[in-house]
């Protein structure tokens, strides 16, 4: 083992992202009508320091320790999610949901944040224990269960955004464990059908492709037939049912899936976010000088829509810088993952990467209306203590894996 800070590049990147993020939280508070947001950057800085300490602590814990702890933490997480459903409460825009663990009127935290970590750990454990990657849908029941239980509990809160993150983690880790891309496509097919259902032609083309895949996959005939049936349901029946719903019912269903969105106002919010970003131009309006933000046109500018502030004030240059930092972080995580000295650690690294990635793509995409609006934060940027802590804990785990990892040659000996 080497002395000093393990994987300095990773830490530097995460550090840069955090400082960038705190600067943006500060800017988010600089509005013409001063609100509580003005002081949040201080709180966020304190959380940042705490988070870095926690990361260092995490980097001291060996991967074996994590391996040993994983089942207990997983069970604890499930228990907390159930507890949250029983006595939880909402906050902010999602006041009607139950995502916060509230005890005696105190908001303790969001167990879902913890769940993102523990699911990665547990899934890594389950997938690492197999000699070969799953080759049929049936063989996937075990990993599916690991993700499925907390996923159901979170969707019951309900919290669509976090639910999407879990699905992202699931697919990414299956991919990393070597599951055939055709199988992945088959698993994803119902969702793809649902997305493509708006256009008969697109869906038709997709359906033909699916039939081809099932043909290649013919050893598992029954599963194939079931999949085709599910695709027909999601691609044909669901849209028809959806059309039959009155607009207010559709809205109600959407709000049910994610109460953090106010179906009426969300359209306005996205437009204002797009206007903020688009009006930034090449170089932006200058740090703290975004008019859309200053005048409160950008909604939730310190949390969900903080990237709109980046776009407005720092322009395309600032956006590119932020995206480049994220890309660097992810490429570093891939490097760590591929150099880990055992499958378990490698899968953890990739799972953590996947979790971040889904957050970034969904959050950043949402500000430009490329993704549906869900209340999902941007790692290192969005204001929020537990998320900052969770992100840096991930950094700490990655640091540890990186330290334990070796050169490519050593891996071959396993």
């Amino acid at each position, binding site marked *: 083992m080497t002395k000093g800070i393990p994987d300095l590049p990773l830490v530097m990147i995460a550090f840069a992202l955090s400082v960038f993020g705190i600067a943006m939280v500060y800017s988010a508070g600089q*509005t*013409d*009508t001063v609100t509580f947001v003005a002081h949040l950057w201080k709180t966020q800085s304190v959380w940042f320091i705490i988070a870095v300490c926690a990361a260092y602590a995490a980097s001291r814990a060996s991967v074996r320790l994590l391996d040993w702890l994983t089942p207990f933490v997983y069970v604890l997480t499930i228990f907390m999610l159930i507890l949250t459903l029983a006595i939880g409460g909402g906050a902010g825009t999602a006041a009607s949901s139950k995502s916060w663990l509230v005890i005696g009127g105190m908001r303790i935290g969001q167990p879902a944040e913890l769940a993102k970590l523990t699911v990665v750990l547990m899934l890594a454990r389950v*997938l*690492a224990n*197999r000699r*070969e*990657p799953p080759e049929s849908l049936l063989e996937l029941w075990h990993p599916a269960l690991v993700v499925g239980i907390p996923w159901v509990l979170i969707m019951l809160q309900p919290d669509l955004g976090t639910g999407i993150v879990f699905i992202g983690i699931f697919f990414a880790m299956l*991919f*990393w*464990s*070597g599951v055939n891309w055709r199988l992945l496509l088959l698993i994803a097919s119902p969702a793809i059908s649902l997305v493509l259902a708006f256009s008969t032609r697109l869906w038709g083309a997709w359906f033909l492709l699916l039939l081809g895949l099932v043909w290649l996959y013919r050893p598992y005939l029954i599963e194939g037939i079931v999949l085709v049936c599910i695709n027909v349901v999601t691609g044909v029946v669901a849209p028809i049912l959806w059309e039959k719903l009155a607009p207010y019912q559709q809205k109600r269903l959407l709000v049910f899936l994610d109460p953090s969105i106010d179906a009426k106002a969300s359209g306005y919010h996205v437009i*204002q976010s*797009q*206007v*903020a*970003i*688009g*009006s*930034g*131009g*090449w170089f932006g309006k200058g740090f703290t000088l975004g*008019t*859309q933000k*200053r*005048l*409160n*046109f950008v909604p939730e500018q310190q949390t969900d829509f903080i990237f709109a502030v980046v*776009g407005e004030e720092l*322009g*395309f240059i600032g*956006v*590119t810088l932020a*995206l480049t930092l*994220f*890309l660097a972080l*992810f*490429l570093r995580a*891939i*490097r760590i*993952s*591929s150099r880990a000295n*055992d*499958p378990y650690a*490698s*899968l953890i690294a*990739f799972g953590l990467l996947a979790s971040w*990635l889904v957050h970034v*793509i969904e959050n*950043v*995409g949402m500000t*430009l209306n*490329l993704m549906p609006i869900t209340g999902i934060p941007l790692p290192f940027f969005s204001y929020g203590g537990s998320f900052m802590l969770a992100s840096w804990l991930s950094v700490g785990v990655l640091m540890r894996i990186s330290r334990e990892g070796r050169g*490519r040659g050593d*891996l*071959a000996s*396993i």
Partner: protein
Amino acid sequence: MSYHPNDVSHRASVARLLLTVGFVALASAFFRAQVLRNKEYLAQAEQNRFREVPLAAPRGIIYDRNGRIIAENLPGYAVSLLSPSADSLRTAMRRLSNIIPITDDQVEAAVRRWRKNPTRPAVILPDAPFDVVAVLEERRVENPSLIIQSTPKRYYPDGPAVASFVGYTGEVTERELADSTHADYKPGQQIGKGGLERSYEAQLRGVEGVRYVEVDARGRVVRDAGARAERAPQAAKPLRTNIDMDLQQFVVSLLGDSLRAGVVAIDPNDGAVLALHSAPTFDPNRFVGGIPADYWRELNTDARRPLYNKVIQGRYPPASTWKLATSAMAMEAGLVQLDDHMSQPCTGGYRYGRYFRCWNKKGHGDINLRQAIEQSCDVYFYQVGLKLGLSRIVAGGLKLKMRERSGVDLPNETQPQFPPDAQNYFNERYGARGWVPGSVSLNLSIGQGENAQTLINMARFYTALATDGKAARPEIVTRNPERVQIMNLTDVQMNGLRLAMAGVVSSRGTANSARVEGITVAGKTGTAQNPPNLDHAWFMGFAPAEKPRIVVGVFVEYGEHGYVAARIATKVMARYLKGATAPVVTTE
């Protein structure tokens, strides 16, 4: 899992590739929004945060012929509120009503203005007094959506004296906005409502400027001045009129508030209106920025009808002032000349089917046309009317433009009443057998019957008598003077007529008591029968008779006799011709 290094490195490559492609795609989406569509979004961001506050342009100043101000602009204050909804506007105004007086009507008016144009600040007090503005400025911080701005306010220094022709301004109404001719008007703007203010609206209006205030998402003003370059309003060019304010004031003082009368003075050579007044009058200054309800009620319930313009709207039988029209027709037709006598001398009446009276029961005896004009002998003109015959009287009246508006540059001029033809009109009115052309001719020849003229149109006719037979279109503002030949008489004939009219204002004539020293006034009195009420008094004339420079028409409702009007008219002429310094000496 399969953890063979080759597999891992392969998957890592795939992951790197996918990741890079994904981020490049994401970055290009930002490039599209931020660089390619930057202008569009920038415009939207600007639109978000700026609210236009209109800056009213000062209306054109209206001058009289000597450069004296008839209408000007005083600094005033308008108070507006920016509001995202009608309800919040109501709430905000209710809150304001704790510190300044606001009536429910004002609230509703503001809400109507807001509905018409929600992005504009809704004007809540179009003309706020200074003390109200002071209170609001003090509490500005508590009401961040409030916009106070100075705005020009129309003012008429001579107020009631100019009301009859200058009109007034007011906020454009919803009905006016619905009219396509007002397509470029916006709610809350001022518009000329009557008189010159309306006739010359396009010229007087100026170009509205705009100022921007910066607002936040809740419509609160966060920056007022200098938020964005403003466009200064462009003041309109001044409007020069032909009105002689000295004469106008003199006319107003003559009529006072007790008479119900109209006076118009015109330069016969170019139609320039020197004075125009209808009494009783009103104060147009009180109309500006909304007419107070009680004042409006008072004006509308006043039996003397101050809002009814007796010069351009009032229609009355022209009575004996018409005898000059009859004379001109007969002379032009070659039927009667100034020295001709009629077959029957006046014995106080004339029998035609029934007995037609002369105003003078004693009779005028055997007289010629000149004397008939001087003494306004009805019997003489009955016979002229019979000689002319109905069709020539009707045709002659139409040629004299007695069925047309004078064309004065004021809105709402009434069209005079005169038969459009000699046959069908009467058939329709009385039935084919219900009338006798002769009797109709008799009535028409002395200015009674189916004939009702406005004072201004009679004045136009007299401009032709005063000159070479060309009638001048009355013009308060000089457009392009238009004179139309309506009489074809020789100079000798014209001079003869004028001499006869000079006789009217002489010891021999009916306006004997209206003479003024040093000026030869030519004219004609008229006493319009108005049973069962008192008769109306007319006088139409001009001076100096030799080379007329002013035509004056006076109409006094219930004035009883023409000389009442004549006395006013001759004083007006004297004032104009001799100036304010020379004492007007009448021989009353």
